[in-house]
């Protein structure tokens, strides 16, 4: 038996490291910042990071659901721009000015409905017409931002609206509102995945779509559902970005967000072939990506270099995933 012991221990330590690789990475980044980044341990730093990470986390959670079914959604950034462009148009319209309360409500609901419709488009393309997800979502990736820019004539829309800005600048218990929002969404999605029939079907479809269909799973509906949730969350993130900036810039809102979201999901432990939906992992992934960005920025490294660092993180995450396979 003495021979069998080393293999056994390595087998047990292996998964342990793999499962907590993200946490280890987070601790390393935090330790580095505490030691080297000036003014890191200040409340202001926490605020900045929470308010910035919330949008990545929200989009990454939707992306995690889509990836769990074996799909991918490239259109999230464009949907953010579209939703973000719509909101100021609505509350700054004549209607919004005449009825401020209704205007704000409509500025929240209508963009989310439009985002949901985008998701339905993606879902129908993928689930009904059997288009490859990467191609299906490329359509809105390209055209979504275009529509947003057409709607705003390509202009930056600035505004001053206290109620709407609460979405991006409000505080609850001293912490940014959108942080709480992201957390609430995470808890809800976690329960959806682990407790509901919808969640079980999501994982089953990603695990073996043919088997799921033959066991009576409503594959088409569930797939359309996850794309709608993903797009809806992207729309919400778009609104938050606009609220933070008190301005809507259709050209920049959500730019490259699809990459951040996919990276966060993968770093968080989502398998691109589907079957796993680590919701809190997505948040962890988003935090890591945000912190790396912040660390480099705070230490005077240029934004372009930060992109390379991000690629490094994805590489590491993919490597960890590969070692998972026997």
């Amino acid at each position: 038996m003495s021979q069998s012991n080393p293999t056994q221990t390595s087998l047990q330590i292996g998964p342990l490291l793999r499962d907590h690789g993200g946490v280890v990475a987070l601790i390393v980044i935090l330790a580095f910042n505490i030691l080297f980044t000036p003014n890191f341990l200040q409340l202001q730093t926490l605020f900045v990071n929470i308010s910035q990470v919330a949008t990545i986390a929200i989009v990454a959670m939707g992306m995690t659901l889509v990836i769990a079914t074996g799909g991918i959604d490239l259109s999230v950034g464009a949907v953010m721009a579209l939703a973000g462009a719509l909101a100021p148009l609505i509350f700054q319209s004549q209607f919004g000015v005449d009825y401020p309360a209704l205007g704000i409500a409509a500025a929240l609901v209508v963009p989310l409905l439009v985002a949901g419709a985008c998701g339905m488009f993606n879902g129908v393309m993928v689930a009904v017409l059997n288009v490859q997800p990467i191609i299906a979502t490329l359509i809105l990736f390209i055209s979504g931002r275009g529509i947003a820019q057409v709607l705003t004539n390509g202009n930056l829309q600035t505004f001053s609206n206290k109620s709407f800005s609460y979405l991006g600048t409000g505080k609850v218990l001293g912490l940014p509102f959108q942080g709480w929002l992201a957390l609430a969404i995470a808890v809800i999605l976690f329960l959806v995945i682990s407790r509901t029939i919808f969640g079980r079907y999501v994982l089953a479809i990603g695990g073996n779509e043919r088997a799921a269909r033959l066991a009576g799973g409503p594959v088409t509906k569930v797939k359309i559902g996850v794309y709608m949730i993903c797009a809806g969350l992207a729309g919400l993130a778009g609104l938050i970005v606009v609220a933070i900036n008190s301005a809507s810039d259709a050209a920049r809102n959500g730019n490259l967000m699809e990459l951040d979201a996919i990276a966060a999901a993968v770093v968080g432990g989502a398998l691109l072939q589907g079957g796993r939906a680590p919701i809190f992992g997505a948040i962890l992934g988003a935090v890591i990506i945000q912190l790396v960005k912040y660390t480099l920025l705070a230490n005077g490294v240029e934004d372009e270099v930060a992109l390379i660092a991000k690629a490094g993180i994805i590489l590491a995450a993919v490597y960890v995933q590969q070692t998972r396979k026997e």
Partner: protein
Amino acid sequence: MTTLLEMNAIRKAFNGVAALSGASIAIERGEVHALIGQNGAGKSTMIKVLTGVYHRDGGTILFNGAESVLTTPREAQATGIATIYQELNLVPLRSVTENVMLGYEPKRLGTFINWREAHRRTREILMRFGIDIDVKMPLGSYSTAIQQLVAIARAVSLDAKLVIMDEPTSSLDASEVKVLFGVVRGLRDAGVSVLYVSHFLDELFEICDRVTTMRDGQTVGCVKLAETTKLELIAGMLGRDPDEIAQAGMTEFGGGAAKQGEVLLTAQDIATGPRLSKFDMTLHRGEIVGLGGLLGAGRTEAARALFGVDALTRGKITLKGAGAPNSPAEAIRAGLGFLTEDRKAEGIIPGMSVRENLTLALLPKLTRNGQIDRARERQLVQKYIDALGIKTADMEQPIRELSGGNQQKVLLARWLANEPDILILDEPTRGVDVGAKREIQMIIRDYVDRGFGVVLISSEFEELVEGADRIVVLNEGRSIGELKNPGITEHKLVQALAHTDEVTA
């Protein structure tokens, strides 16, 4: 003859659970050696230890006279061990030549593939096995049998000394099996050893020289096939007394005893495409109706049509007086269940637990307001694990870690838990060991006796003949007749298959 391979006292454990505890096997040069045992006996683990997929915890391996320290399948290939897996690891969309030559293509100027030479060599290799096909066609355009032979040809072209075949005949029909056996004999004559893993015992007597039997991770014996009987082999695998089995019969079915109840299902003149062009059947409560036919006769297609997977192009299905289902989900609601033939591709969800796999079809009934009643789920799963004797560490174990027979029991439980009026079983005991097979057959008979109906598809005529109350005979996508038990014999079934016109039993 000299010994090519000697594996001695091999030990291997997964997370503390022993899969192999002192297993041994010795293969001579130019010998076809069978390896048998129930699912979970350790056959696959043994092969994976040999080919370097797993690292052994203890024991010695001598291959070709030298201590073997293989760590990757690639190394195994280089030393002369080739494995033909159940699931072929070939590239169906690429040409036959590319598949055979993959990684060893003849080059021009060291860079460019010399296609003419590649095609020529491939043709030559295949001709040695009597396969004369267009090597420029995509591999996927040929039958499974041809693909399998191509895989073997590739292995042999790489100078294999030992070819491992894992259930090579499970998806072949009778004539294809003959061709395969010819190839195996050719290998033997050329001095290549073959390790032959199969559940079909009859085959072993036809093609193998010696047989090693495994049980519970250990080797229980190695005998010449000429000096043993099928009964003794089964007894060895089960660890039971041969006489006891002889008395009980080879299967647990007893067809023909059923009393027919009301009509559950009728299919009239249905068609779904070229592979199912005219099919009729009736199923009553309390009976097993078998679908008899050769590979490609349209049995699975008939099952898919009944379950609403494939749309009808003609004809009419009546289900308990109502119309036909349009999707699996509708079929399940209407009281149908369908245990599919291809466990891996259409049955299990490998990453999910036994519990999640077992309740997948039952979820709508376990759900209130979209939320799964998890307490009831666990209770139900435990009930079926106990009732069917599913061997699993606990219900949270991923199903991919279970042996084939236990996976099949989980899938069977997936449907039994739903209590469908009609259960369609497509090869319910394929790739399942003898012990689990008898248990599954008993479960099916039990189910029918409770007043439900079963449509049974099986390539094993023995199972069909003994199990079914009636057999609908199919040939080339058409139902061509019906046989009634008691009174069906394998001989009569074969006769019915041989006649393409109407037959009556």
